[in-house]
């Protein structure tokens, strides 16, 4: 039996509640690793970001995120996992994404959490557009994200 929760939503989420849910009513979980991604107030060039809008391809987003989650389940002995990703307009400080993974031991939890984030970054169909004083512009994909994702290839 594979447990997972994968969701795309406009609303915020409560990381504490989401992490607690992974161990609720069970005592076989030895490790929970989690990652929360947030909107920064500056871009890599130091410009002030007023807000960002996350566009998505709704019909594909959920499907691709589920494929990534199944891939993680196949690679590591995971007891449960949660992926939440927001879309729409978000202001600095807002949470964008949560990945939380439960396993018997920490190594699987740490690795699966990093794997899921690397693959979300390079495969989930979302696009960020940042608003600065110089106008709005699409964020470019980073080569470092591709390299981070490629390190998981056998």
């Amino acid at each position, binding site marked *: 039996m594979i447990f997972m929760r994968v969701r795309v939503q406009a609303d915020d989420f409560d990381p504490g509640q989401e992490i607690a849910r992974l161990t609720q009513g069970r005592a076989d979980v030895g490790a929970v690793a989690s990652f929360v*991604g947030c909107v920064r107030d500056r871009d890599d060039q130091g410009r002030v970001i007023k807000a960002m809008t*996350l*566009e*998505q*391809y709704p*019909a*594909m987003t959920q*499907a*691709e995120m589920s494929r990534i989650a199944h891939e993680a389940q196949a690679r590591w002995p995971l007891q449960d996992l949660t992926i939440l*990703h927001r879309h729409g307009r978000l202001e600095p400080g807002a949470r*964008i*994404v949560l990945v939380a993974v439960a396993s018997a031991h920490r190594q699987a939890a740490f690795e699966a959490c990093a794997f899921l*984030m690397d693959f*979300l*970054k*390079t*495969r*989930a*169909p*979302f*696009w*960020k*557009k940042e608003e600065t004083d110089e106008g709005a512009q*699409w*964020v*470019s*994909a980073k080569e470092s994200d591709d390299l981070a994702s490629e390190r998981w290839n056998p």
Partner: protein
Amino acid sequence: MKLLYFAWMRERLGRDEETIVLPSDVRTVGELLDHLRGRGHAYAQALADPRIVRVAINHTYAKLHDPVRDADEVAIFPPVTGG
């Protein structure tokens, strides 16, 4: 064939979707992109650099040699930047 465009691809082409009749000699993703490049300046420019063009057929990533059919939903978009 239903075509969908996202992010700056959508903005440069000035549309988020369109329906085209697939010419019979267009059989792969690569041939489809070539066909679209021939539809005008905006298409030629938006699709000029294959390194920053991603294609999904029926919600699954596709490669240049993958086959396309008239009944497919094909999405064309730049490299993703979520997470």
